[in-house]
């Protein structure tokens, strides 16, 4: 019989096995402590991502490196701690270049999952857009350094049959990346290679020729939250006085694909309500080119990639009481921001001069005073104007949009279901 001791988690008395890992004990007792680098069979625990930060005996510390001792007192769900952990996950999104809609691991990605669980709709940090390479040299694998969160799992866990490491940290500081050994990588068995891809909490390690594909909705993290009370979380922004009469809405698509506008239409029969309750001012739906009145709400799709986008966005800020950033591109740059780590000239030359379809010598890079000027990079909307609310997704779920808008316009209480919270 194991040595049992008494501990408290958020004031709740718990009997637990001495020396056991705190995350494990919390999980067994139905208490959710978010974690990313923690992997049950890796000992000692890695303690790299810090997402499991709690207050342990009054001091901040990661739960994963804590062994159970008699009288241990743990605080998990204070507002401060919840916000701190959320900030850490946001930091990872801001630091890497995580384009969920274009990622093989989407739906099976631990990082994305944590984003959903913690309700990250936008990162408070400006994305860093650091130039990172994709390493195609390994014969078995592709290393997607844009997606790596440096959790150390693969470094510690993946070894060849003669005990040699395949992955190791390289460089340091914000230049740190996980390098792959081309010689050792070849020696991995198929099973070992697939295991490396599986233990990666993001899509940084991809094994060539192995598909992760599962239909949307059936992927690992599509369905249900691990937190029992996830869908009970009510959100309201109560201090907003309800507006009388018909609400006036403006919408626009900047550097976006109109996909978010399409998603707006997906609210099905609720559309009939919308027509009753709302009228549209400047919007692609009305084709009004200019504002005709002040609007209660402005919905922005897409990021800011040219001078015209900047002007339009400023006009929206001036004419709308509330601005909502709709969809990944608007929230932080999204797909168009894939160009942010590449010099503009390289992008333009590739697109207009060196592409397969351009005739050598016959093509130019368009420039005319009537054309909007391309910015040095794609900016998130909140870098240009103040944004009040964010709705993530590519595109955002129609219900998510409609619930958020209803809340903003009429102060209706709402909760976003786990399945309605998506980045892809």
């Amino acid at each position, binding site marked *: 019989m194991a040595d049992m001791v008494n501990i408290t988690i958020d004031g709740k008395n718990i009997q637990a096995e001495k020396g056991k890992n705190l995350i494990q004990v919390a999980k067994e007792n139905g208490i959710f402590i978010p974690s990313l680098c923690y992997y049950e069979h890796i000992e000692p625990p890695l303690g790299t991502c810090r997402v499991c930060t709690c207050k342990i005996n009054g001091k901040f510390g990661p739960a994963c490196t804590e062994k159970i001792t008699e009288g241990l007192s743990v605080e998990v769900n204070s507002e401060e701690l919840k916000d701190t952990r959320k900030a850490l996950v946001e930091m990872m999104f801001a630091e890497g270049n995580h384009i969920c809609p274009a990622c093989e691991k989407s739906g099976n990605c631990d990082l994305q999952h944590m984003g959903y669980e913690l309700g990250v709709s936008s990162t408070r940090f400006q994305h860093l857009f650091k130039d990172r390479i994709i390493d195609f040299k390994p014969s078995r694998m592709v290393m997607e350094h844009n997606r790596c969160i*440096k959790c150390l799992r693969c470094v510690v866990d993946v070894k060849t049959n003669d005990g040699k490491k395949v992955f190791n940290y390289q460089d340091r500081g914000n230049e740190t990346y996980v*390098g792959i050994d081309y010689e050792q990588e070849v020696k991995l068995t198929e099973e070992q290679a697939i295991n490396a891809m599986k233990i990666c909490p993001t899509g940084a390690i991809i094994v060539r020729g192995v598909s992760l594909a599962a239909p949307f909705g059936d992927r690992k993290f599509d369905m249900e939250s691990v937190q029992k009370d996830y869908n009970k979380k009510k959100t309201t922004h109560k201090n907003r006085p309800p507006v009388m009469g018909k609400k006036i809405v403006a919408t626009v698509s900047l550097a976006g694909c109109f996909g978010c506008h399409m998603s707006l239409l997906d609210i099905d029969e609720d559309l009939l309500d919308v027509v009753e309750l709302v009228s549209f001012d400047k919007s692609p739906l009305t084709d009004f080119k200019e504002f005709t009145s002040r609007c209660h709400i402005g919905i922005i799709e897409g990021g800011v990639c040219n001078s015209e986008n900047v002007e339009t966005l400023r006009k929206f800020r001036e004419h709308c009481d509330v601005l909502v950033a709709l969809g990944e591109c608007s929230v932080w740059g999204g797909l168009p921001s894939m160009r942010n780590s590449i010099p503009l000239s390289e992008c333009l030359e590739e697109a207009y001069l060196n592409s397969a379809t351009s005739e050598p010598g016959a093509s130019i890079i368009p420039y005319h005073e009537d054309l909007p000027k391309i910015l*040095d990079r794609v900016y998130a909307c909140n870098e240009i104007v103040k944004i009040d609310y964010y709705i993530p997704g590519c595109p955002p779920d129609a219900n998510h949009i409609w619930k958020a808008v209803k809340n903003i316009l009429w102060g209706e209480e709402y909760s976003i279901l786990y399945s309605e919270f998506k980045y892809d």
Partner: protein
Amino acid sequence: MPADTVQLVEPGQTQMLNQLWELQLKNGFINDNDIRRIAEQFNLATIEVEGVVSFYHFFHRKPTGKYTIYLNNSIVADIKGFNRIKETFERETGAGFGSVDRTGTFGLFLTPCIGLSDQEPSALINFYPFINLNAIRVKDIIHALKNGASPESICDAPADNIRYTPPGDKSIFFKKFIDGKALSNAAMLGADGVIEVLKKTELAGRGGAYFPTWKKWKAAKDQPALPKYVVCNADEGEPGTFKDRVLMNTQAKSLIEGMMICGYAIGAEYGIIYLRGEYRWLKSKLDEAIDEYRKKGLMGKDCGKIKGFDFDIRIQMGAGSYVCGEETALLESLEGKRGEPRTKWFFPVEKGYLQKPTVINNVETFCAAARILEMGTDEYIQMGIPGSPGTKLISVSGDCKLPGIYEIEWGMTVAELLDLCEADDPYYIQVSGPSGECISIKEKYRRISMLDLLARKDIRCGGSFMIFNKQRDLVKVLLNFSEFFKSESCGICTPCRAGNFIIQRKLERLDNGLANEKDLEELKSWSTIMKNTSRCGLGKTATNSLIFSMEKFHEYFHSKLDKDFNGLNLKFDMEAATEEYEKYKI
């Protein structure tokens, strides 16, 4: 080595750093074949060796020139004319910083503080020190090197600049040291007696953490596992700090004897001095002292005729990494790995070097321990103030007439110290380096002691005062610090690796006049998050000076804000954002 030397058997990889150093010094870089050979020798994947090499900034994978020049870019160097010196080096050598000139003669690189803040601007050429540089001197140096002079023959001997010791010949650290006396006193007291003395004299970790030394030694002594190790942390990387440099240059023997006393007290046979790469020029000093001790029979078998007490010391060179000053990162580095701090799963006194009980102390702590045993408890505790007995070494640099080392009695006020060093219109003072606390001149009557943990009343000082006058722009100082932390973070934990980068971006925003009230709040909140969640002291303290300065220089920060902010961010610079595209104008 004499026959009765205690031989330390250390497993393979621990020697890797030394081999890499040899290659780096011999060839100016470490090539692919060498990497493969070393990997084979230690039975590692090449990626692991590459990981180690790329971690330390004195190791290079490309040639670094016949003369490798490292110019210090710390904030103190900056205010002493760093930019001019940088330009002069570039003009004279024909190389740009971060590269080697076409002939492969000169390689120019920047490096954070090299421990010569009292004689800035300074540089290392092939790891030999050159101090108090000015444009003419740089020209002369490059000229001499071009004419075949060796850096060794023309380098400077940095001054010790010991400016102040307690009056009445009461210096604890710098009086004459009698070889072997402290050790024989220790032997008379016995191991428990030594620990008791340290308890009475309240010696605490002088690297800046102030953990009671007796507790650490006792914990190590009580460990049953063998062998045990004594490690001296001589990786003085905190910008603005150079007290250990002076101690090692003048008091190598008290350091050695301090380590031996520790070995005697905890039952260790072997000590290692982890000396930062920047101090390579001090290595011979330490080697000489160690050799002398061996020759005198004070080191080796039955040291100082203490039956059954064998002890020896070796020196391990660091290779350019600030984080290796963190004790567990230092242990990793000693083991020939990347200097990544360990989790706190075990303490070093339980499982330290090679997973064996290890005491790690700062140079000054060992020196103080030796002095305490030499002079006796009673005399020692008469110095300083109750609760904080003894003296403390402080490295003073920046805007003052007399930069250098000040051995002050605990209890001295900031004002007294500023007077002694003839500070020039001090306004902002950075205590204990970038990771420490900053104080405003309004707080000049605070005492310097180790009493107050939260440093609200007294100031606990790790060892340095960097003084800035009113002409210095605080945001520039903070940007220098944040660049330092960004590149010195080991990269293993998220808040430190990403956080320092994020903070730097935000400070740039402030510097460019784009920030508003909300940005200041965010800076404060994000700094706190890093402090609460980082894995080791680096990340936990990287934002200290930012948090403190925002509290203490409130008006200054507000004067930096964009006052017209109305949600439109009108300062967004369209011209700059479209500049690149404009070149396609027909």
